[in-house]
């Protein structure tokens, strides 16, 4: 047993910290730390900065322009980035489509798409779920029918995250209805500017536009945009899933939000004292803090095993997903609860970059307050998306426990 990072890893942490201190723009940092709405520009700007530093894609192999980091280095980078208020890099391009492209795409596809991802030039989104195919993804019905050098795509994708900004979407589409449901699925890359693609916003419960329905009406997609073989898409999708989930406990974000919770509770007053000195509230913080202490080690155990074996982590990542989502939800809940009746106002403009409360409101409504209730609401999604926690428990029961 050795819980220490290696000297090389500690040196890397120092390097990351110095980089963040020097390069992370103050306005982006403020938006992240206050939980405000991030604009497309924030995310893209940060990706370009990372790219210029050679860190556009930490864990990609160097031959594709990545930094060639180990999972432990990536963990350190994520943790330091979260603490410093760096935006998380969106997974859709870097951690989802890219590994599929690297493994299954043609050299031409790789040469075209990967550099554009790395540099922040292309924004990708995911076209998996459909109205009738959520957890049961294999029942998807969006069809791609071959017509000469094109597929003609028709159907609807839903629960699409941030597709309103996207240049490209990677889709699972049905190219055959023969055999098992899994067998007729293909993995297709679609330019969002293609005629027939339309995006309909789905407003989330916090009033924000974060997800979409994507409609395909006779969308003509060049056959050249098929990844791998036709009808083998399910294989690529499973491969993607394995890679997506290696690092999904979100320890860095949880640690940042725990610290913020304590700051907020230190600032709020109850019964004439700082709320954090209220034993009940303090114990509620403690309970989630203990869970997070444990999960941080559990996460490192999973990572160090994956690192050692040079394999994607196994089904134990389901544990990380379940507890990680529960912790971030609970932190958001306690942040809201800390506000007392100041959780009630819905001050939408308070989510905008640079907002300062008007003098009246500022008597009780500090800059950190406006996003908190909405974020509590919004974070209910974390136990639903990326494989609901029920699905994760099914996975544990089947893959780990053999039930």
């Amino acid at each position: 047993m050795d819980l220490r990072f290696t000297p090389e890893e500690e040196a890397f942490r120092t390097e990351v910290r110095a980089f963040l201190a020097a390069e992370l723009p103050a306005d982006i940092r403020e938006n992240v730390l206050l939980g405000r709405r991030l604009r497309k520009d924030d995310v893209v700007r940060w990706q370009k900065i990372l790219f210029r530093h050679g860190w556009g894609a930490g864990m990609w192999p160097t031959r594709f322009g990545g930094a060639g980091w180990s999972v432990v280095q990536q963990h350190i980078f994520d943790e330091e980035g979260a603490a410093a208020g760096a935006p998380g890099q969106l997974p859709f391009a870097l951690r989802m489509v890219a590994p599929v492209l690297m493994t299954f795409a043609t050299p031409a596809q790789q040469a075209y798409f990967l550099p554009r991802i790395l540099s922040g030039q292309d924004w990708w989104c995911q076209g998996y779920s459909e109205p009738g195919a959520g957890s049961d993804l294999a029942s998807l019905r969006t069809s791609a029918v071959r017509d000469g050098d094109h597929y003609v795509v028709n159907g609807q994708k839903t629960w699409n995250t941030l597709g309103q900004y996207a240049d490209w979407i990677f889709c699972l589409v049905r190219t055959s209805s023969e055999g098992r449901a899994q067998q007729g699925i293909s993995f297709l890359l679609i330019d969002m500017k293609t005629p027939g693609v339309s995006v309909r916003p789905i407003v989330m419960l916090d009033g924000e536009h974060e997800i979409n329905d994507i409609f395909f009406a006779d969308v003509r997609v060049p056959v050249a945009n098929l990844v791998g073989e036709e009808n083998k898409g399910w294989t690529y999708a499973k491969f993607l899933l394995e890679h997506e989930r290696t690092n999904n406990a979100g320890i860095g974000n949880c640690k940042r939000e725990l610290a913020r919770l304590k700051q907020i509770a230190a600032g709020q007053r109850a019964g004439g004292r700082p709320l954090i000195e209220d034993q009940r509230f303090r114990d509620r913080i403690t309970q989630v803090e203990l869970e997070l202490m444990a999960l941080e080690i559990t996460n490192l155990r999973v990572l160090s095993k994956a690192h050692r074996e040079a394999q994607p982590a196994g089904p134990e990542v389901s544990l990380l997903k379940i507890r990680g989502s529960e912790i971030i939800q609970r932190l958001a809940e306690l942040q809201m609860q800390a506000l007392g009746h100041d959780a009630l106002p819905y001050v939408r403009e308070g989510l905008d970059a640079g907002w300062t409360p008007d003098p009246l409101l500022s008597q009780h409504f500090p800059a950190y307050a406006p996003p908190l209730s909405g974020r509590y609401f919004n974070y209910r999604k974390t136990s639903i998306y990326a494989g609901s926690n029920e699905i994760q428990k099914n996975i544990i029961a089947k893959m780990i426990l053999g039930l």
Partner: protein
Amino acid sequence: MDFRYNDEQLAMQATLQRFIERDYGFTERRALAASASGFSTAAWTQYAQLGLLALPLPQQFDGLGGGAFDVMVVMEQVGRGLLLEPYLTTVVLCAGLVADAAPPAMQQALLPQVAAAQCKLALAAYEPASRYELAQVATTATRSTAGWQLSGFKAVVLDAPSADAFIVSAREAEGDGLSLFLVPRTAAGLTVSSYPTQSGARAGDVQLAKVSVGADALIGTVGGGLAPLEKAVDVAIAALCAEALGIMSALNQATLAYLKTRKQFGVAIGAFQALQHRMADMYIAEEQARSMAIIAADRVAGADAAARRRAVAAAKAYIGQAARQVGQEAVQLHGGMGVVDELIVSHYFKRLSMIEQTFGDTDYHLARFAQAAPVP
């Protein structure tokens, strides 16, 4: 012993159910929440016609003399329909306080107006530093020749933007007791800022800069305002518990229906035993919450202040937790459909969350219960 609503209560329940179905569907409700005022003045008038506004008011002031269980019936439907009008604030809380503690002249002036939908009231009690403590008041009341001069700042006053008058708590000097004053919205020196709340209705901050009111603006006695204020808030909390109950009931109904219709892997998801057991837990939570709401309604009607305080604290703390469980589980079992704005489920969830933050959260009422509970 009888735990049924009586015939009049059932009639009122049916009336409100019909009203919600016909005139206050989810689409209409969303439009109202997005409108300038955040509620429907037409509905408010209808409530007067249905006798809702008069329901708990004393008969000598055009009221119907109803009790806490009559209010419970109404508030369950307020929850179910997510009604946005300031019923709780104006009728239950403020008019209740006026009926309980105000001088007869003020009662005569206000209560018939409330019953007739001619007057809306709001309670300006909490302050930036007070959190949920009604007694923690920095607003000052200074005696003047004409009466009183009030100065201070009241935060998150529910339904402030539409109120015609405010009940304001203040004290003469530190260490003195609270006094309560009726302050018309038009009083010079009174400023209202307003904002929507997370669950749709409106609230605002009220600033009082040397606001003059007459001697007849006093509600109750000088320095004796805390007891009637706390009682009125307890009555409102009992009503709020009923509102939460109505929502929990509606959420359970919606979730159960979803479990029966939504298919995954070729079967209705309600066939999965893990979900069945969680739905059973939600059912139990609702039934237990109903029992607690009944206790609270029963005790706020009684004369025993300690029993009232204990029951209301118990109900608010218990229902706060039950509502959180039911709200979060309903969202979870709805999957993605639970976190979108276009289904009522998420709105129910948000309202439940805000109810927990209103008039004291679970922790506050756990503390209150611990202080109130007799240790044998």
